């Protein structure tokens, strides 16, 4: 039977219309037409503005008739649109009063916050027409991707090994060797899946892929004249649309399919996709920023405002999204549900997530409704939720982020403590916590080891190579007189600032890199590796390359041949972690022998077995994991022993005796002449089973089997 709602009831000029449906928000293809729906609680009128693709001036403006407003939602079906060739926006009128926080301006054309595709920056780096009356243009997406039998992988959190990467940086360098039009795109990542598989990671965390404007605050580099961009994209234009410039097919408007296909292909190879999402602020900036969308639609609802009408700035980026307003909470929830359901995304990492726990006046909430909603949402139920548990307003919640049994955290304390230990500051007590999945932060609250996303380096800050090559940041190329970027790097240059020919320094740096990787991969919790650290990528001491679309940011694939020993070591360590469930416990250690093996699940040692030296300044520690206690005693594994000697002198470590039938084998020794590691399963037996020399600033990992 034919539906009656496929027939128009109204007309405007040549357009046929009828009352739309308020839900879902956004533009949705319906039989015969497109349903447009948008919220504003303060607008007094609204028009739909239609453009032909790329056209300078509108094709038509259709005012919403009064009877097409339901509550605070304008909704209308427009029939017979050539929706593949269409761009749309809105014009809204309403109060304009700075102190009251109202910014309505009918001269502006506004982007739909729910736009699923956004045109205007279709190809990365192509200079926009600054005279354009409408820069970021909503388009209409097909939500009909053929997923076949794909679904999110649901890898147990403790089994994840995350690779943090920037879409463009990963393959933009010509050394990536892929087709030119794929470089720096989602398609490029797909081309490099074999590399990721060989590396062994099982999750990629993509730095922001929601549509952003690389030309936001773009400017010439004062040193070179080269353009500095909003390269990282932590400044969202549209939360429902993938970055067109990251798609090889962006010029055909097919970025949605290209990203979905990437997710599908990664899943096919056992790799999850985590998105780095930025819900703390938008690209509209402060009072002087552009009007793109939210500001002109309902400024007061979407942003946290001071009583004087200024923008609160807890993000450090000009404005702060009013996350715990019920309307805004819903758009965040709608957005994440959309990405989980439509794109099969496996998890989300929330940038400056502490902001999501502030009330509309900026005060931290004890029980933030948004975080609770996300934790208990049925559609997001299997998604990983990872908080960057701090913000630029001074809230620091590592260990205390409102978790509801669901939220994991970027463990900033892990990063800081491992870095300090690595350069010889001691603090073995802190390191013991790091190695165990930070029970000091999480066990008391009943939060699992996998709550702790362990990392030593991330996009913010030094790369691993730079961490061992620089004492200070060198951010001059950012054009801010080296004032940007963190000063607290806990780094050590090993004796010379920057690149050197000194063989001893270079050898020590390599060792330090391997020490860091070894510690990361034997820690309980979830390891996160920064793109390129596996091949010793440098940013020449720049610890904040947010603006560089050049070799400072791009992964140079030649590094594989320059630093093959580092790459091999990382691969081995990842493989070692994957072959040993005892390194991936779902629950915290009990410091007991509850399996009757004669060994507690974890035991601590020093240069003398069974005798760890816990003094503050001590720089060496060893531990043993009992294989009978792997995954809480549910699976059997080998015994693992690791000695971490961050002292400047070689030390003899007495080994704890194994059960009679077992022998210690050497998996890794960063202080040894190459090879410094072995493929798991091929480890040679240790000659002397009672002890071994561990070189200065070296890590030894043994497997008892």
């Amino acid at each position: 039977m034919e539906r009656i709602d496929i027939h128009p009831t109204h007309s405007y000029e040549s357009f046929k219309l009828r009352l739309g449906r308020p839900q879902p928000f956004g533009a949705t293809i319906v039989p015969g037409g497109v349903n447009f729906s948008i919220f504003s609680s303060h607008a007094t009128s609204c028009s739909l503005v239609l453009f032909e693709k790329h056209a300078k001036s509108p094709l038509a403006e259709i005012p919403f008739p009064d009877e097409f407003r339901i509550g605070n939602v304008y909704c209308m079906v427009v029939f017979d649109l050539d929706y593949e060739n269409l761009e749309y926006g809105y014009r809204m009128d309403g109060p304009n009063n700075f102190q009251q926080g109202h910014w309505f301006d009918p001269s502006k054309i506004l982007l739909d916050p729910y736009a699923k595709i956004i045109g205007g920056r279709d190809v990365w780096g192509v200079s926009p027409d600054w005279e354009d009356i409408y820069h970021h243009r909503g388009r209409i997406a097909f939500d009909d991707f053929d997923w076949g039998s794909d679904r999110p992988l649901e890898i147990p959190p403790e089994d994840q090994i995350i690779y943090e990467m920037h879409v463009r940086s990963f393959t933009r360098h010509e050394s990536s060797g892929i087709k030119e039009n794929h470089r720096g795109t989602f398609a490029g990542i797909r081309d490099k899946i074999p590399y990721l598989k060989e590396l062994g990671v099982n999750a990629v965390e993509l730095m922001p892929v929601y549509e952003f404007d690389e030309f936001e605050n773009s400017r010439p580099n004062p040193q070179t004249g080269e353009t500095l961009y909003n390269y990282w994209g932590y400044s969202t234009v549209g939360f429902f649309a993938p970055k067109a410039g990251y798609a090889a097919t962006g010029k055909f408007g097919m970025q949605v399919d290209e990203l979905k296909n990437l997710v599908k292909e990664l899943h096919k190879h056992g790799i999850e996709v985590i998105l780095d999402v930025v819900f703390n602020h938008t690209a509209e900036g402060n009072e002087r920023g552009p009007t793109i969308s939210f500001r002109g639609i309902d400024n007061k609802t979407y942003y946290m405002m001071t009583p004087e009408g200024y923008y609160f700035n807890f993000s450090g980026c000009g404005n702060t999204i009013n996350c715990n307003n019920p309307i805004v909470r819903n758009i965040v929830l709608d957005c994440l549900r959309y990405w989980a359901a439509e794109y099969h995304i496996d998890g989300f990492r929330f940038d400056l997530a502490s902001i999501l726990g502030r009330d509309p006046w900026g005060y931290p909430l004890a029980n933030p409704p948004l975080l609770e909603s996300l934790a208990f949402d049925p559609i997001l139920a299997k998604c990983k939720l990872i908080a960057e548990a701090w913000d630029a307003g001074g809230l620091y919640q590592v260990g205390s982020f409102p978790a509801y049994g669901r939220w994991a955290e970027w463990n900033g304390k892990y990063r800081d403590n491992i870095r300090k230990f690595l350069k010889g500051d001691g603090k073995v007590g802190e390191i013991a916590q790091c190695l165990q999945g930070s029970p000091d932060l999480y066990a008391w609250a009943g939060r699992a080891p996998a709550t702790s996303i362990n990392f030593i380096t991330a996009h913010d800050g030094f790369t691993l190579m730079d961490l061992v090559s620089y004492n200070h940041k060198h951010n001059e190329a950012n054009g801010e007189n080296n004032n940007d970027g963190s000063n607290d790097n806990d780094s050590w240059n090993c004796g010379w600032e920057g690149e050197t020919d000194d063989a001893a320094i270079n050898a020590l740096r390599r060792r330090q890199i391997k020490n860091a990787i070894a510690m990361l991969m034997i820690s309980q919790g979830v390891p996160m590796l920064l793109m390129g650290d596996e091949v010793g990528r440098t940013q020449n001491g720049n610890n904040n390359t947010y603006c560089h679309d050049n070799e400072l940011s791009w992964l140079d694939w030649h590094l594989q041949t320059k630093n093959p020993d580092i790459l091999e070591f990382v691969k081995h360590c990842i493989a070692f972690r994957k072959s040993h469930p005892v390194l991936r416990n779902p629950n915290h250690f009990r410091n007991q022998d509850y399996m009757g093996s004669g060994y507690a699940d974890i035991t601590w040692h020093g240069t003398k077995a069974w005798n760890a030296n816990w003094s503050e300044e001590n720089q060496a520690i060893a531990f043993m994991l009992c294989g009978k206690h792997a995954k809480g005693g549910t699976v059997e594994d080998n015994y693992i022993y690791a000695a971490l000697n961050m002292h400047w002198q070689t030390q003899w470590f007495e080994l704890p005796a194994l059960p009679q039938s077992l022998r210690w084998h050497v998996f890794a020794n960063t202080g040894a002449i190459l090879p410094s590691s072995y493929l798991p399963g091929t480890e040679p037996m240790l000659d002397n089973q009672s002890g071994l020399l561990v070189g200065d600033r070296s890590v030894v990992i043994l497997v008892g089997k």
Partner: protein
Amino acid sequence: MDIKLKSVGEIQVVELDGDIDASTAPDVTKFVSELVKPHIRLLLDMTKVPYMSSAGLRTLLSLYRQITTKEGKLVLVGLSEGLIDTMSVTGFLDFFITTLSQEEGLAALA
């Protein structure tokens, strides 16, 4: 969009000439859908299709679904290099058998 039909033995050969986008895709769908019957063997020659939009690709996938439901077989012939690349990165290519020439296409359907 110009559409021609011929038969080579049991195989239906449809030759398309022109872009396939939101405005022409419905014509292609209508034309081909009317041919689809159980166990159909269909060759779609796209040597003269310079551009296919997202809507065009969806049309092809929808025809593929119709044909496989009827236990038929579809082969695409003469896709341009650019089109192959677009179809590959967006996942459409995985569904289709493609060949360079009509002869190879007929052989694939034989």
